[in-house]
């Protein structure tokens, strides 16, 4: 494993981490504030990507696609909140899991019906195609760098919003003790709609960013959703800081694991055994990480909840 390869894989890991953070941020705040498990958060990621593809065919530019996708994801999210989610806040987690599972089945199938099962692609913006030469012999696509930067900017904006604005203060308070915030006269439902809409938009944004480098296909949000849950459980539910750190850890562990597990396995076993064991271990690494974290810290690394 050369230094160049390590650098590339590290950047790819950061990039996956950033995407995961964009998804996990909304998920963890919704859960922290309203105690609501939203399995359908992953389909927002998928919808963002699909709507962007349609936006591209309408406007012919990536930026038009971006705008269309983000706004579209927001609208769908708010409609879902209005029709279904707000009736589930007072229900137990099992009901929430079931209802949002139903929404996943519906939206995955709706996407398949509208756009077909064949994977689609979203072209990169011209401005961001091409590659940088990061160091000798290491070419890295500009778009992937831009993705990392965009994600970091969003994370920074989110950080300022959450820590330095009144709305952010209420969100943090809500994540720590929602009933108390409600008792103080804050309209927690409206606060939730705000958080929810924002989270939906972030997930959609992540889907659009990922669209040019991954394929756009039905069910693409499902695996990301599971990863995002791993992130918020490791980070501590309701904690933005925890989600950010955990997202980077998960992104790096997953990517580096996939890149090097087989090579590392070869150090201790025969090449043929390593070839079959390596990939298995690589895809399990983050789940092992999560199990280990929960074993030692049952409420995650940075728990936001008081009690």
């Amino acid at each position, binding site marked *: 494993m050369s230094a160049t390869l390590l650098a590339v894989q590290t950047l790819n890991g950061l990039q996956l981490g950033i995407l995961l953070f964009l998804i996990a941020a909304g998920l963890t705040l919704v*859960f922290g504030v309203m105690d609501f*498990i939203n*399995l359908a958060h992953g389909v927002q990621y998928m919808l963002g990507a699909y709507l962007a593809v349609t936006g591209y065919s309408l406007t012919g530019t990536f930026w038009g696609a971006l705008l269309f996708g983000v706004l579209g994801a927001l609208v769908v999210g708010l409609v879902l909140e209005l029709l*279904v989610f707000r*009736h*589930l806040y007072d*229900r137990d*987690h*099992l*009901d929430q*899991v*079931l*209802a949002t*599972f*139903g*929404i*996943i*089945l*519906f*939206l*995955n*199938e*709706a996407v*398949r*019906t509208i756009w077909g099962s064949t994977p689609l692609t979203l072209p990169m913006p011209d401005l961001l195609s091409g590659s940088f030469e990061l160091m000798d012999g290491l070419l890295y696509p500009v778009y992937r760098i831009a993705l990392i930067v965009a994600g970091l900017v969003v994370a920074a904006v989110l950080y300022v919003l959450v820590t330095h604005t009144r709305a952010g203060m209420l969100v943090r308070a809500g994540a720590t003790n929602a009933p108390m915030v409600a008792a103080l006269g804050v309209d927690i439902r409206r606060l939730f709609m705000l958080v929810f809409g924002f989270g939906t938009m972030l997930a959609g944004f992540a889907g659009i960013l990922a669209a040019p480098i991954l394929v756009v296909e039905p069910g693409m949000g*499902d695996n990301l959703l*599971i990863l995002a*849950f*791993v992130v918020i*459980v490791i980070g501590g*539910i309701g904690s933005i800081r925890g989600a950010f750190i955990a997202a980077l850890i998960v992104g790096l562990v997953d990517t580096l694991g996939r890149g090097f597990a087989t090579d590392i396995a070869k150090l201790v076993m025969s090449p043929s055994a390593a*070839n*079959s064991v390596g*990939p*298995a271990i690589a*895809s*399990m690494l983050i*789940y*092992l990480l*999560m*199990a280990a974290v*929960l*074993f030692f810290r*049952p*409420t995650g690394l940075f728990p936001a909840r008081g009690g």
Partner: protein
Amino acid sequence: MAPRRSRETLIAAVAFILFALLPPVASAMNDTFFVFFAIRVMVFAIAAVSLSLILGFGALVSFGHAAYLGLGAYSVGILAEHGYWDVTISLPVTLLVCGLFAAVTGAISLKTRGVYFIMITLAFGQMAYYTATSLSAYGGDDGLTIWGRTEIFGASVLGDRTTFYYVVLGMLLLSYVIARVIVASRFGRVLQGAKQSEMRLRAVGIDPYWYRLVAYVIAGMMAGVAGALLANAAEFVSPAYMSWHRSGELIVMVVLGGLGSLAGSIVGAASFLILEEVLAHFTEHWRLIFGPLLVLVVLFGKGGLTAMLGGGRKNG
């Protein structure tokens, strides 16, 4: 308590009688599809009953229960690949593999509560799933075809469709009876007591952790048997058996039938699969209808199908 228990028995009795009568009726109608379909229903009913044991009576929302279906199926598939066909080998191996997996993952998962429990069981389910997809020697992503069915003491009696059907029915009956005995025992009462108030149990000197773990292991082994039967029914094993969607579907079956009713889980599994089959008959996009239907059931159908059938149980 008494009327509820007799209703439970009535529903179970009706279900088992219908299952028992199906093959002769189907052969009179010269229709083999129903027999194949009913085998599938019964296999998932076993898995649903096993999940019901921990979900309905222990309030443990395991989101990785499909892993046991897969572990059971792969036990049969991998053994067959190496020439071990007999039930005297495959059944103990299935029980051992599933029991061990449940003991290890359960010991860790049960340290957590609520949403963390849901997520950690999901994580373990995913681990099993990814392990299966990376088993390139056994088909990897594409799955593994099994060229035949499990033999019983060297005889390939399960090759006969009707015999296989009644073996599956027998396993369902056995699972149901075992689950019911467990629920009614002192052990089962502790499990249900822990659901209501863990603190009260601790106050009388009972640590519910071990009770939950044992129940978790039993449920895992039972679902493993369902998986072994599924592998035999399809003569095929695939990582898809373990996908988290499948775990979600098992939860749906249990809740659809009514939490806290074992017979309900059988009804739930049957209704789920029948609904899926009927909707799929009308349109390939059946999930467009099934998804919203599920949401409506959650929003308005508190208590599940058995509560609707009996009309008794109050909300909540």
